[in-house]
């Protein structure tokens, strides 16, 4: 070993890094952590809804018999349970999303931050409006 390293920053010998061990279940300890993980997990149910929607569309386009079969599938107790849990999670997603909006859009009027409700409120109203419109189109179909 004749050539000494020019750059000591790249030595292979470095002290061990200190890394505090974090348990896999770190989010169980506190409600705010649990809420964070539940919010993150809601994305799985968003994906499940898309999959279910694509199944519904496939059944719908392949004829009344297949569509009736799909309706039967939706009445299976396991599927009903999954859909009830999904409804909880997608609603949880919507609520946490709208509650987050004021934090993402810190609007200032006259140097003062407007109240969170002024941002979250219209979001909730729009949510109600959009839901009503979607329901109206589906119910009169």
């Amino acid at each position, binding site marked *: 070993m004749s050539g000494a390293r020019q750059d000591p920053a790249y030595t292979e010998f470095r002290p061990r890094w200190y890394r505090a061990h974090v348990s896999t279940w770190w989010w169980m300890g506190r409600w705010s952590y649990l809420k964070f993980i539940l919010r993150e997990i809601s994305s799985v149910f968003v994906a499940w809804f898309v999959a279910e929607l694509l199944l519904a569309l496939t059944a719908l386009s392949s004829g009344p018999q297949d569509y009736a079969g799909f309706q039967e599938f939706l009445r299976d107790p396991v599927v009903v349970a999954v859909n009830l849990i999904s409804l909880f999670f997608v*609603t949880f997603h919507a609520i946490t999303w709208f509650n987050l909006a004021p934090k993402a859009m810190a609007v200032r009027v006259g140097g003062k931050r407007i109240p969170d409700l002024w941002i979250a409120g219209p979001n909730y109203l729009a949510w109600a409006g959009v839901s009503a419109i979607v329901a109206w189109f589906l119910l009169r179909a």
Partner: protein
Amino acid sequence: MAKRSNEPILWVLFSAGGVVAAFLIPVLLFLLFLAFPLGWIESPSYTGLLGLVRLPITRVVLFILCFFSLFHWAHRFRYTLYDGLQIKHLNQLIFPFCYGGALVGSVLAGYILWNMG
């Protein structure tokens, strides 16, 4: 030149997906997959529903919903795996699984919706 991160684009997709999912999924899930099949609310007829879905505007909206929701899932689920399970070292597996899955799902959604016309 510093390598540009693609993170902002992925975040915008995540964010747009969060909005469309929040506005549309609860009502659609409740009506289509619970209230109608279980008879809580009288279900629209097969032909009525097919007619509604065949409208180009419905199909465009449904495609936007599927596309952004899937990328919303991809981004959030990726970070759930990183933070919740602390498996960031498996990124080379997680990244293609999440965004690749969203891409495949979007293509499938586009294919199904296009052929419904």
